[in-house]
């Protein structure tokens, strides 16, 4: 599903942020990507999204080498992934329904499909009754649910979450994690970049730990399990 083969990334400033990374996330897996700020987590996410290109090595997504993917094909690569960010990234001038429907317009879904799909996804994340609300009328947890609904509305095969609970209090954060787990149980591959220790410990899933650009651990367990 997501495979890194000897991937290194050096930015034009000359600093190497990823050094020879190797890992493979299988279809249907749930994995955490952990590490301190500046460890290279975000770069790994950017490489998966093909926002950045690796300096060397190969990145294989859904069995396809994306290293030499043409820029015009990137949108189609991204349609296979749902993406969630720490800051939710909702459109403030559109209500919940429109924010989710927006992602479907973008992939040119039919109006009928949109009308059927959006309410279904909203009820899946527990926001069926808030469709008409605007983002500033929602709590942080609710906003992240909208973002989650938007990420899964097009049925992507994988979900990438970059610090999804970074702006949330612990209880709300846990709700979001349970939702992510639910989505995973329906067959979607989930990769969560985080440094929320308690959550990682509690979920007890596969953990890929990165430090100074090197992957220093890749196995099931808690945040601080012995390397």
């Amino acid at each position: 599903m997501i495979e890194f083969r000897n991937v290194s990334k050096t930015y034009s400033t000359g600093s190497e942020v990823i050094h020879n990374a190797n890992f493979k996330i299988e279809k249907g897996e749930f994995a955490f990507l952990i590490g301190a700020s500046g460890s290279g987590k975000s770069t790994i996410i950017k490489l998966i999204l093909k926002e950045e290109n690796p300096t060397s090595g190969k990145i294989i997504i859904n069995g396809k080498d994306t290293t030499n993917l043409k820029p015009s094909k990137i949108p189609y690569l991204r349609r296979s992934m749902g993406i969630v960010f720490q800051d939710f990234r909702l459109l403030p001038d559109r209500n919940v329904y429109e924010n989710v429907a927006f992602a479907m317009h973008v992939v040119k879904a039919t109006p009928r499909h949109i009308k059927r799909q959006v309410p279904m996804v909203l009820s899946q994340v527990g926001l069926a009754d808030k469709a008409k609300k605007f983002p500033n009328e929602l709590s942080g947890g609710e906003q992240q649910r909208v973002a989650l609904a938007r990420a899964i509305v097009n049925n992507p095969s994988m979900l990438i979450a970059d610090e999804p609970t970074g702006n949330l209090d612990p209880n709300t954060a846990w709700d979001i994690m349970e939702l992510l787990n639910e989505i995973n149980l329906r067959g979607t591959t989930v990769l969560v970049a985080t440094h929320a220790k308690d959550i990682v410990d509690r979920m007890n899933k596969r953990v890929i730990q990165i430090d100074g650009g090197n992957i220093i651990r890749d196995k099931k367990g808690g945040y601080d399990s012995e390397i």
Partner: protein
Amino acid sequence: MRFNSIGYMISEGFKSFFKQKKMTSASIIIMCATMFMFGIFYLIGENVNFAMSQLEGEQGIRVMIKDGATDSEIEKLKVDIQAIDGVSTVTFVSKSEALATVKSWISGSSDSEDLLDGYEEDNPFPASYFVTLTDLNKNSEVQEKIKALDNVSDLSTNNDVITKLATLARTIQIITLVLLLILVAISIFIIAYTIKLTVYARRREISIMKYVGATNGFIRGPFIVEGIIIGIVSALITLIIIGFAYNAVLTKMMSSAVMQSISISLYTFKALFARVLIVYLILGIGIGTLGSTISMNKYLKV
């Protein structure tokens, strides 16, 4: 591309057109002003061309035929003149016709009425060809060629009017062209700037669109629609303003003594409407598309 996504782009384009009120109205005003200036010269140019086409029928070259030329030589001369590029019609005027014409000019003044009596026997007026042109610009060229032919004794022509008109027409054409270029440059810049502000205001939306897998064409669509709307609205507003302005000026000119003394008619705006509309719409849509396309490229690299 499915129909509903085109519909989506158009509705998004309209929404943003109305959201950015200040900037869109500013760019519409500037576009209208430049289009208006261009329009003035365009209309003058059209009218000068119109006037020239009216004068072309009247302005011609009189080719005096040498006395003593035989009928077959005269006939050959006609064929030779007609073969020259730029010649429209060649009409023969015989010696007696020439005399009759001159007599008719004189007959107005009673005391000299019989001045030309008796010339029938020894007619001093030469036979001639009256040559009209398809294009006044070719006047001097045609004259040179006729002069070189046999049996031509002299040419008489209203060179002054012809060259002046031709120069005027060319000057106006050049001014119109230069103005057009300036208009296009200014308008593209203005629209690009307006769209850039919209793009900037919506950069968040654009980045989200990129992340959920929107193609560049899909993202660009609404902005191009917005640019086109600005272009079309400016074109229509300018069309109305210039229509009224033109009719007002036309009425004044037609009632002036100068215009009444010469027999040249000008276009009514009605006659020019379709032409101006098409020119403006092409300009508006072209500039709108180009301006918004230019402004987008930077923001599409996510």
